[in-house]
Every structure is written in structure tokens, then in C-alpha cells.
């Protein structure tokens, strides 16, 4: 009897760990977020205020926009380091074309961003260059190109209330960037869950050779994924530019690729491709932002801590997330 009991317990606990492993990526991240928010709400003064909530969401919106595209790129087994530079390109492209009308400027900026992304995709799929190299090249040249567009990287201030609404406006109590962010997250979820495109993305990341033999148009899909990532980066660039009220090609989107990749990883998307969760990415980005905000506000009633401590804490979270997701044997 006793032996049997022991055996069944062992098996159950084995089951439990493997289950935790499976749910770890998404539910683990959600759990961590809830824990962080609750702890801060209780112990950090002024954290649990409505204005702070909107503040956190507004601050995280650009990262989330970029990270949704990044999630899909990573789901194909690739990576997109160029998103920050694409933001700068979009920002500069819009700033220099306001003369032709706000709508034209926005459209022009988004199309340019999308084209740069498609170019990434074409190099990755057509010439079989590694994504990290292709997008690193775009990261470097893109920042340069943005500064060329903006006359040598000068700050271009503008006064265009219609455009600035994208970054500064409110719909009811909700900041417009937050609305855009939620819409993009919803679109991302829809694409991954309901469309054939989303399935092709996962199939390519999961087993490219098999996807090709099943008739999946691998080239086209990859180009589209990078183009979409570029488009969302362009949108993020516009939102940031509108929020600042000026185009700063040297600064806009700087290092955002790292925040986005961190959000994707913490959210539970596998860097090896084939598995992706947009919701997880949103959660991952929120975790990072909550940490930053609470460290700035003085966590748990302490004095505001140096930013560097926040970075260390974030790094620990990233490592933990990767550890939970590591490939399991057998």
C-alpha cells in the first residue's frame, strides 16, 4: 500500500512539474505581473492610482507595438533588430512631409517603414542571410538614413495638433497611444489565432522544411512578417514622435529592440520559433514597465532607487523566463 502511494505521488508531482513547465511561459508571466502589481499597490505610495495606471500603459505602448511584430518575427525563428531604426525613419519621414498634409505624412511614413521591413524579409528569405545579420545592418544604416532624411539628425520640432493627437490625445480617460496599443494587440491575437497567415508563421518557425513541402509559401510569408514588423515599428515611431512633439532621429526608438525582445521572451515566446503568444508579450512588456516605474517611484516606500538596480532586476526576470522555457528532455 505504502509503496503504491509513494509511486502515485511521485507520478503526480512529475505531472505537476511538467504541467508547470507547459504553463510556465504564459501563466508564470501573468502570475509574476499580478504579484508585482499587487505588491506595489500595497507598498508603493501613489502606485495604485488611476493616473499612474494610464502612465504605465502609455509608457509601455511603443514597446508593445514593436513587440507584437517582434513576436511574429521570432515565431518564424528570426529576429528583428532594426525596429528602433525603423521608428526613427518613420519619425523623420513624417516630420519632413507635414507640408503635404498630415494624412499623407502618416501614410508616407508607414509605407516607408513597411518597405524597409519588407526589404529585411527579402534579404532573409531570398538570400538566406541570417536574420540577426540582416536586421543588424538595417539597424545601423536605418539610423543613418533617418538622420539623412532629417537634415543631419537635427531635432525637427513641429506644431501639428492633428498629428500630436496620436501621442498626446485622450479618448475619454484613455490616452490615444494606449488605444492604439490595445487595438494592435487585438489585431495580433486575431492574426495568430484566426488566419492562415498566423498558422504559416508558426509552421515555418516550427519546421521550415516541412512547411515548404506542405506547400506553405515560405518566402512570401517571411517577407510579410518582416514587413508587418516594420509597419508596427513605423507606427510606434509616429506615436513616440507625436508624444514628444518633435522628431529626433538620433534618439527615437533607441534600444527599443532590446526591450521588445525582452518582452517577447519573458512573455513565453520561444526564441527558437514555432511557438508564440501575443498576450504573453503584452504581459512581458508590462512586467518590465512596472518594474521600471516602481523603481522610479521608490518601491515599497523606499527612496527612489537608482535606475541601474531596475536593470539588474529586469535582467534577473529575463534569465528566469528563459530558464523556465528551456527545452525539456524527453
Amino acid at each position, binding site marked *: 500500500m505504502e509503496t503504491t502511494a509513494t509511486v502515485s505521488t511521485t507520478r503526480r508531482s512529475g505531472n505537476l512539474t511538467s504541467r508547470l513547465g507547459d504553463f510556465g511561459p504564459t501563466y508564470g508571466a501573468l502570475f509574476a505581473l499580478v504579484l508585482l502589481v499587487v505588491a506595489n499597490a500595497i507598498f508603493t505610495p501613489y502606485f495604485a492610482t488611476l493616473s499612474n495606471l494610464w502612465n504605465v500603459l502609455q509608457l509601455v505602448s511603443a514597446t508593445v507595438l514593436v513587440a507584437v511584430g517582434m513576436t511574429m518575427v521570432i515565431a518564424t525563428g528570426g529576429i528583428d533588430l532594426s525596429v528602433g531604426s525603423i521608428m526613427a525613419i518613420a519619425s523623420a519621414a513624417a516630420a519632413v512631409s507635414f507640408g503635404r498634409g498630415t494624412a499623407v505624412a502618416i501614410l508616407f511614413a508607414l509605407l516607408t517603414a513597411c518597405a524597409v521591413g519588407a526589404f529585411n524579409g527579402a534579404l532573409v528569405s531570398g538570400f538566406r542571410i541570417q536574420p540577426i545579420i540582416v536586421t543588424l545592418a538595417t539597424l545601423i544604416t536605418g539610423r543613418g538614413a533617418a538622420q539623412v532624411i532629417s537634415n543631419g539628425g537635427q531635432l525637427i520640432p513641429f506644431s501639428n495638433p492633428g498629428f500630436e493627437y496620436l501621442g498626446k490625445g485622450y479618448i475619454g480617460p484613455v490616452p490615444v497611444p494606449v488605444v492604439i496599443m490595445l487595438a494592435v494587440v487585438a489585431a495580433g491575437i486575431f492574426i495568430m489565432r484566426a*488566419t*492562415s*497567415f498566423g498558422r504559416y508563421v*508558426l509552421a515555418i518557425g516550427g519546421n521550415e522544411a*516541412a512547411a515548404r513541402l*506542405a*506547400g506553405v509559401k515560405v518566402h512570401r510569408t517571411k517577407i510579410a512578417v518582416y514587413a508587418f514588423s516594420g509597419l508596427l515599428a513605423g507606427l510606434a515611431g509616429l506615436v513616440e514622435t507625436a508624444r514628444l512633439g518633435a522628431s529626433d532621429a538620433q534618439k527615437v526608438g533607441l534600444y527599443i529592440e532590446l526591450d521588445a525582445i525582452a518582452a517577447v521572451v519573458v512573455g513565453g515566446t*520561444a526564441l527558437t520559433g*514555432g511557438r508564440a503568444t501575443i498576450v504573453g508579450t503584452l504581459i512581458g512588456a508590462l512586467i518590465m514597465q512596472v518594474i521600471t516605474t516602481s523603481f522610479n517611484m521608490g518601491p515599497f516606500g523606499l527612496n527612489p532607487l537608482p535606475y541601474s538596480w531596475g536593470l539588474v532586476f529586469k535582467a534577473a526576470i529575463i534569465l528566469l523566463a528563459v530558464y523556465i522555457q528551456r527545452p525539456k528532455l524527453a
Partner: protein
Amino acid sequence: MSQTVLRMQGITKVFNNVPALSGVDLELARGEVHALVGENGAGKSTLIKIMTGAYSRDAGTITLEGKHVDFRSPQDAQAVGVVAVYQEVNLLTFRTVAENIYLGREPRRWGLIDWKRMNADAAALLKSLGLEIDPRATLGSLNIALRQMVALARGVSFGAKVVVLDEPTSSLTEHEVNILYDVIRRLKEQGTAIVYISHRFDELYAVCDRVTILRDGKLVGTRELASLEKLDLVCLMLGKRREELRQGTTAFAKLELTPAGGAPLLRAENLTRGRRLNDVTVEVARGEIVGLAGLLGSGRTETARAIFGADPIDSGSVYLEGRPLGIGSVGRAIAAGVAFLTEDRKAEGIIPDLSVRENLTLAALPALTTLGVVSRSRQQAIVERFMGRLGIKAASADQKIRELSGGNQQKVLLARWLCRNPKFLIMDEPTRGIDIGAKGEIQALVNELAESGLGVLMISSELEELVEGSSRVVVMRDGNCVGELRGADISQRTIIQTMAEGSASDQKAATEG
């Protein structure tokens, strides 16, 4: 035989409790070219890796020139002149030929590399092999064949007593193969023993003196090639007794390359791709199951992939219902109604992290999609229908396919194609590595589908499967179609005979005595 250079005795190697080699002997004489042959899983590469120090052995002894040796690493083996030259050339593309040959043991003078001597040594070495290669040339400027020769020269430069050539000709053209043969002859004259691994019979008989045959990790035997008929060699590789084959009365099937009546459903014409495929023509009629037989490396899979458009070919054309299929386009082949069940489920079949549902409907998605959105209900209907019809055992359609057994994975992949309602189905080793139950079910299903008009091309290494399942068997060897058997002429005996001796050009009487 002249003196023995290397002797391996009773070599045994076990991986995870599965024996890969058990008690294998191999003996190499000075100046001999020794072929090592065997089908998949025979243990050739394990044996070679033990010989050259890449793996340790679990039992057995190795002696080199009479002395016991115990290689702990490939470097150990190289140091005493036992070297393997692999088909993927592991050299530095941007360095010179001489640098590559002497990499890691460059001749030095006053602590610096003695370039003059290195280049002179390399030139002398290449010349002794009959190769006209400039030692100062950058390796990347040479073609694949010459790079391979440089790799070989590097092996020889260790003062090689034993050189292993693993599939040395797989990426070479006919002319380049002759260069290789010349080099091999020179090495022989210098007294080097060469182990030659190849699936191509023409090569074995052209350059090798003796052959050692392995099967399922066991030694079958070592024979003189000059006195070994091809038929006997095939029998030894496949583990069939020649006496078994002599029974039966029908003579060798006569070659006939027109299908039974009517326009064919599929006709692949003169498919040619380097040395892998040479003028291969195959026809399959509606409702017909055509078997494609041949040893490993005979061009079976290459033929299938060429028809499906998965690999580019040099020349040839494919017609489905008389209309040409775009060569090299999987998309167009699928759209036209061709389906391809791959032999390598894991590498080219399943998407491991996706569910049974998504794996099953992957090829059918275009038909289930309206304006980019997949119809969940239509997808579900297909999944339910085919999971039921093929008896796919899974916890639910949402279970990840990698958690299924091999047989169930194969059924899902078959369903992936069947739900598209194809006209022509290519199956490459459809029942390899799956349990008996699933095997029987798949075979029965394919028969049933053929009766309702599906044309099937079935590749199999299992002769029983070909004999029982096919209405016609096309036999391949060394990239050529060497014969075709039909009806009552199809038996294991006739298939093996055709593999060994059948030839489109010179068909000699196959029955001995």
C-alpha cells in the same frame, strides 16, 4: 593477401542500451581499397568513427601494424596515420591550399611559419597525388571536387596508413570522379589502405578490391569483389539467401516501359540531376500503385522529390493528366493534385509544436480560408472526419503532434494530403519506423484509395511491402531506372535480381545455372 595494416576485432558499441555494432571485424591490407557497405542502420559510420577515434568502443581490439592502439580522439588517430575524409569538407575557405593542408602543424622557422617550405611541401604532395593545384591558391577559388582533393591531400599529409573516404563522389561530376579514381590509384601504389564507403555499385566494382558487408550492426562478411557477383552482394546487404531466390520458375521479367493501357495519370520524363538521376522515366496510371525499388542511394527519393518539385533538376519534365507540371515548384505540384509523404517524418513532416489539428490541415489551409481567415468549423469537420477514418489516436485534436506515436504521426501526415483529395500520391517509405498495426491500416487505406482512382508511387526498402502492394515495380540503381516488373513477375527474387543486374542498356541473363 599482403601484410595487414589495421585490424579491428570484435568491435562492439552500444548507444542507450541499443547495440549499434556487435562483434564486428575489419581487416585492411596495405595498398588495398576496401569497400564498406550496408543499408540504413548497418553501422558503417559507427565503425568508421571508432576506427578514427571519434567514438570510443565498448569492446574489441584495434591493432595498427601489429601494435595495439587506443585512440582517444581523431587527433590521436591522425597522429599515427588513420584519417577520415568526410563528404562535407571541413576546411577554411579563405585560406590557401597549403595552409589548409598543414593547418595546426605548419612548418616553422625561428618561431614563424616557414611559408616557403610549406608551399614547397604542399606542391610536392599534390604532385605525388597527380593533382595540378597551386598550393598558394585560396581554397574558395577551387571547385568542390578540388576542395575535396585538398581535404584528401591533408589526410595523406599525416603520412596516412589508412584513409577513409565517406561517400567521396556524392557531389562530384563524372569527370571529377575520374580525378578521384586517379588519386586513389596513386595512394594504393604508395601502400595506403583505403576504406571506401559508397552506395554506388559501379564505383565499388571500379575501384575496390574487397568489400565488407554490415547489416543491423553485425558483420555479414568480407569478400573479394572480383569474384563476387552483384546479385550476391545485394543478397548479402539485404540479408536474403541466394538459394531462396533461385526457387521459382519464371524467368527474368522483360523490360517494358509503357504502362497498362490508356493515357497515364502521371508521366515523369527523362529526369536528370547530376549523377543522382540519369534519364529517369516513370509512369503511373489512375488507380495504380507503382513500387519504386532500389538500394539506398539508388535515386528513389531523388526521383520522388523531383516529381514533387522539391528539388531542382537539370533536365526532364513531369506531366499530370497530360499537362506539364512546373518543375521545381512544390506549390504548383500541390495545386495540380500531387501529394508527397516524406520519408523523414521528423525533419520534413511534422511541425512538432503544433497541434494535430493544425498539422493535419496545413496543406489544406488555402481551401479553408476566406479573406485570410480560417473557417474553424470547416477545419474541425475535416479533422474529425480524417481522425476517425484513419483511426488517429490522440487525446484530442489539440494535442501536440510530437506527443503522438510514430504510427499516429504518420497517419496525420497522410491525412494532411488525403484531405486535399489528391490525384497522385507519392509515398517515401510510408511504413518505416511505425508499429505493425498502423502499418497494416495505412497499407489497407492506400489500397482502398487506389481502387477509387488514386495513382500511387510507393518507395520502400521493404521488399515484402513492394511485392504485396504494387501492381508494377520500377527498379533503380545508381540513379538509373534499370528495370520494370509487373504482375506475376514481381517477387523478392526478381526485384533483387533487377537491383543487382538489370540494366536498361545491357541486360544480361540473370539466372545462373
